[in-house]
Structure formats: structure tokens, C-alpha cells
């Protein structure tokens, strides 16, 4: 279980606990449940790299405590 921090530059910072083998899509669902938006409206980026929904966090090498960027479509 890792904890990922997603930062929306507009003042929203979300800490999410998840497994390494969760996909980005699952992460988005979790984030959406916490922030109150819809998961399909979210875009998770790491400096111009838009993370795709079907790839797991382990494949993206997202470690514990990593900061990701949160954007809205």
C-alpha cells in the first residue's frame, strides 16, 4: 500500500492510499470519491506526461509519497 499525494494547483491537495498494482483509473476513482468530482473529469499528470487509465502505478513507477499533478478536463 502506498500513499500518493495529488496536488491540484488551485489549493486542493489529496492523499490517497492505494496498492501498487492499482491502475490509474482506480486511483482516479478514489480521488474522485475524496474530492467530490467525477473520475472521468480528472487528469493525472507528471510534468507533461499524462498518465493513462489502463496502466498500473507499478508500471509508472509511482512510489510511496510521490507527488502527482491533478488537472481537470
Amino acid at each position, binding site marked *: *500500500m*502506498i*500513499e500518493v499525494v495529488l496536488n491540484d494547483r488551485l*489549493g*486542493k*491537495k*489529496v*492523499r*490517497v*492510499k*492505494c*496498492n*501498487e498494482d*492499482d491502475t490509474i483509473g*482506480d486511483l482516479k*476513482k*478514489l480521488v474522485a*470519491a*475524496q*474530492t*467530490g468530482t467525477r473520475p472521468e473529469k480528472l487528469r493525472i499528470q507528471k510534468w507533461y506526461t499524462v498518465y493513462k487509465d489502463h496502466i498500473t502505478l507499478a508500471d509508472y513507477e509511482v*512510489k*510511496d*509519497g510521490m507527488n502527482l499533478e491533478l488537472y481537470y478536463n
Partner: protein
Amino acid sequence: MGDRETSANDGGGGEISMSTEETNRLRISLGLKPLSTTTQPSALKELEAGQERRKAAEDAEASKALVARLAQAKEKRRQEELLKSTKKLGETGDDIDNDTLQWIERSRRVEAERKRKQAAAKPIRAMNDSDEDEEEDAAASHTGADLAGFKVKHSVDDLEAGESVILTLEDRGILDDKGNLIDDEEAALENILVREIKQREKAYRDSGKVAKPLWEEDGRQRTLLDKYDEEEEQVIQLGGDGSVVATQKQQLQGDVNARLKAGLALLEQVKPASDYYTPEEMEQFKPKKTKKVRKLKKKALTAEELEALAESTAAAAAALNQVNYASLALRNADAQPSTADFDDDDDDAVLAASLQRERLRALKEGGTAGADPDSLADQLRQRRSRRPAAAEGEGPSGDAADQGLVFTGIGEITRAIQVAPGEPAEGSAGQGAAPSGALERMEVDEAPMPTEQPPPLPPSGEAEAGEAEPMDGQSQAIDEPRESGFGRWAPVSEGGSAEDAIKERIKAKIRPPAPKVETGKEKVTLQRDEVVGDRAIGAGMAGALAFLQSRGDLDTAVEWSGRTNDSKKVNIQGLDEVYSGGRTEDRQALSVENSKEKKRRKVEEEMARKRAASGAVESGALEQMKQVQRREAQPYVVISGTVRPGQSRDVVAGRGGYDPGDPDLDEDGVDPLAPRLGGSASLAPLTGNAKVAAMLGLAGVDEGGRSVSRGKRTPSRGARGS
């Protein structure tokens, strides 16, 4: 993380986070499997550990930076103090002398101190001390012995014997390739100028402008890139007393050079056989001439005889005569067997011999050499008459059959000559003119010599028909004193001008008058006019002119071009009236055309004449047609009628009023003012009545349809009827 109790939404500090249980509940509601708990603590620890380490490092760096800054500040302070201690430009200190006296004192003081130091340090000091001051001091006490062991960077060849050269220390760097200090022990001396010269030579050689031989004298073979090879240094070692210690290598070199020179000298002694004969060897191929000394002897003899004769008195004349006869006989006897050789010898020699004989004869006769032409003639006649007697008496040939016949080269040639045209019975008639002409020419060029044929020609000539009749004629000519003949002087006053006399003489010679042959032979007359064959062309301008005259080319008047014609009437324009007379007013009315016509005619005449002279005349219908075409600039020829440009055929039938004698038309029948039908080119083509009028040659077509006959045509038409 599991300890933290946070609500689903806002945690502390605006952070949204959920606890593990909540997250698990959420995940189950979403349909995801719950969180796996194994990995979490280690990751956290790692994170915290990493953070701590970072902090520690930062602190360490900070402390280091602080230390460095402190040290820097200290250094700076020190430098400042140093700077303060040094003098500025404007300042004056103790060692600056403002006064001359001060300076003098100072310098004395310094000098004294230096000497003291020298005296103290001298025994300790080594020779190659790097201290510059000490070296300078020692320079005065240097001797040749001090130079022992020094190397000089030139070869023995560069420095000439007896030459004084200034050597300086070679320039070198302080460090060598590896960065170590170069030991001063290996210092070398060199002459700067020689070094520079060598550098330049080397650069020139390397630039490739000089072709390098493949093999050097010392047997070293050059390769292509030899300029990049390292050159061995040529170094001399100086001995103790100034002598040069030659290295072993140089000695070897010297030996090799000496041996090579010796070998070359040996080679030169042995000359290889050349491909070509030497002049001496060429001599063997020359045909060896056997000189006939006979003639010389003869000449010598005759000269002697002449002298003897000259001094002789009348009393000795008889004896001399005898001698002469004998010599004559001898000579003739000699002449017989030697006639065969005469062909080889020059004709000049033969001529000289015969001349000599004549001179002798003249002397024998004792008379003055014929100053008087008449006496000369008498003498000749006498001689002729005497000759047969002499021949019979002496038997010059000693052979009855050969009596009067001497075969000489010229005689053989002339025997073949026949006088051609009048007598076809003769053998070779065709050769008549040329050889005779040649003979005549020969006579003209050479001195009047009596023929070699001995006089008994007339009698012996009977025996052989056609025996050198021209010779016969000539001999006869000589016998008889002709008024104008060759060999006779014709007085200038005789018969008109000298030119005419000369011409007459030449003509007479060319056409010799019919000689009176006592033997009753037929007259032989050479008539120039009947000669058909080639006449020999003389040499030079005279020959050329004669040739042209014979062709008849000189009869035609030559049309010269250039400035010589400037003053001729033909070319001066507008002066017809002046030359022909008459009033200008009358002429002017017709003058333009008349002069033009004349000029044109003259030009045409000249052209025709030139063409006739050059032989390129083709007068005929075809040629005339071509001329007309050229003139009209049309590919066709109008045989009858007039076709103006733009027309395809003559419209005489339509014209009605066309008058060939129309003064408006020029000679060719073309109206220069109307190149187009009924108008100038600039105007539009005619249509309708105007066109009809133009075609019909009328002034216009009336309204009533009647034609108005044309008067004098004007260049500009009025309004065109459309």
C-alpha cells in the same frame, strides 16, 4: 499513517485524506480489492531516513561554505596589506635619486658592494651558474679554453675556414616535453644568420618547388614523405684550444665522399661509345677524290711559257714557236685520252683551257690583241683557214678518222640538237627551239668564245648529216663580221638610239640571218613566230615581262585601284559639264539622269571588262536572267511587261494607259514612288473604285461610272474613294 484520524474531506492544512479503513470501505464500494498492508511501513521509513540524510548534508555544506568564506576574507586582508606596502607611481622613496649627486653616490656605493660580493663568492661559484650577474662578470675573463666541450649546431661545411663567426647560445625552452626543466649542461651555440638561412632552405625544399632526386650522393634513398622525417642534427664539438673535434660519423661521411669522387673520376676517363659517328669516322665514308693535277701543271706550264714569251725577243721566237707547237701537240694528245674525263670536270675548266689556247695563239701571232674589230675578224678568218692546215700538218688527233672531231661534253650535247621546224627530214625536229634557245642564252651569258669544235667542221660536217648545225651557224656568224651581231661593238650613233641598236642586235642574234654556207647547205632560218613549243622563261623581272608580253597580257589596260584614280576624269563627280562644255542650265534639266546613267554604264563596263579578263564571263540567257533576278530581288523573271510588287502578274491588259516611256518611272520601269498598288506602304490598301482606278491606272472613277484618265501622277493622293 494508520494512526492518523482524518475525515474524508479536509484534513489539517487543507489536505484531503482518508484513513485506511475508510479507504478500504470506499474501495469495496467501488469494487476494488482492499489495500495490502505489507509495504507501507518500510517505505515510510525510507522516506524519513532520506529526508534526514538530506538535512544533514545540507548542514554540512553550509558549514563548509562558511569556512571557505572566512578563509577568503582573510586572504583578501593579507593582499591588501601587501598592496599598501608597495610604492605607487607618484610616490618617491629612499632609492629614487632626485639629485645627480645623490645618484653618483648611490652608484658608487652599489659598485663597491658588488665588488665585495664578487670577491667573496668567486671561489665558490661554478662555471655554468644561472646567476646572470655573475656570468657577466666572468665574461671578461673568459678564454678559449672555457669553450671546450661546447656544441656548435652547424656542420663543418657551413662554416668556412678562416671565417670569423659570431656564435650565440641557442634559443631553447625552459621545459622539455614532459614538463621537466631542461638541464643547462646541454646548451649549444649557433650562428643566427646561418640558422635562418638553413631554415629558409629547408622550407623551400619542403615546399616542393625543387625536384628531389631519388638517390642522394651519399647513397641515401629518398621516400615521398621524407620532409616529415626528423632530421639528424649536425653538431660539432669544440675542443679545448678552439679546434674542432670531428665526430666519428662525420669522418665516415668524409671517407664516403672521397671514395665517390674517385669513382666518378674513373668513370669519366672511360668514355662510352656514342650512338653517332665522330667526325673522324665520317671521313671514311667520303668518296675519295683523286685530284687531277694535270691541269694545274698545264696552267703552271702555260704561265711559265707566257712569261718566257713575254720576255722573248724576236730571235728566240722561232724556237719558241717550235716549243709551242710541241706543247700544242702534247696538249692535244693529252686531250684525246682525257676527253672521257671531261664529262666529269667542270665546263669552266674546259672554257679556261680553250681561252688559254686562244691567248697563246694571239701571242704567237705577235699582234696586238685585237683592239680593232676588223683586224680581229681578219685574224679569226686566218685562224680558221689555218686550222685545217695545222690539223693536217700536225695531226693533232693522230688519227685520220677523228680528224677535226673532238668529242667534248658540250659537243655531245649539242650534237643532239637539231634545228627543227623548217626541216622535218632532220631527226629530232621537235627539240629545235628550246635547246637552241638555251644555246643562244648561253652565248649571251658567257664570254664570246669560239666553239670547241675545231674548224674543220664544214668539211667534216658533210660526212655526218645534222652535225651541230647551230654550231655551224654560229661559227659562220663569227667568221663574218655582221653589222649587228653578238661579239661586235656597235657604235652608239649607228642607226638611231642605243636602245634600238641593242634591241636590233638581240633580235638579230635571236633570228640569225641566213648564213652563207659554202658547202651549199640549205638555209636554216629560225623563225621565232613559228615556234609552238614552250619558250624558256627568263629570270627576274625581264623574264617575267617577256613572258607576259608573249602571252599578250601587257596589251590590256590595267584598271588600277586606289588613290591613283583620284584625279582621273572617270571618278570626279559632277564635273561632266566642266569637261564636256555647255551651259549648266541646259544640262541641269537632264543632268541628274544623264550623269547617273553614265556612271552606271561605266561601272557596268568596268565590271564586264574585269569579268572578261578574269575569265569568269558567262554571257548568256541564263546569266542575264540571274542578273535580273538579283536586281529585282525576286526569284522569278518577268519576261514581258511590268509586274509591280504585290502583283502576281502583269496587268497590261487592264492598265490601258500604261506607258513604257513614262517619265515618272525610272529606267527599270518601276515607279519608285509607288511601291504598293496605288499608294505608299503606309496607307491602307485600296478597295472599291479606288482599287479599280489604281489597277486601271486611272485618276479615278467618276460618279457616273466613267473613268477619268490619269494625268501626271502625284505622290500623294487625295481622299480615297471608298
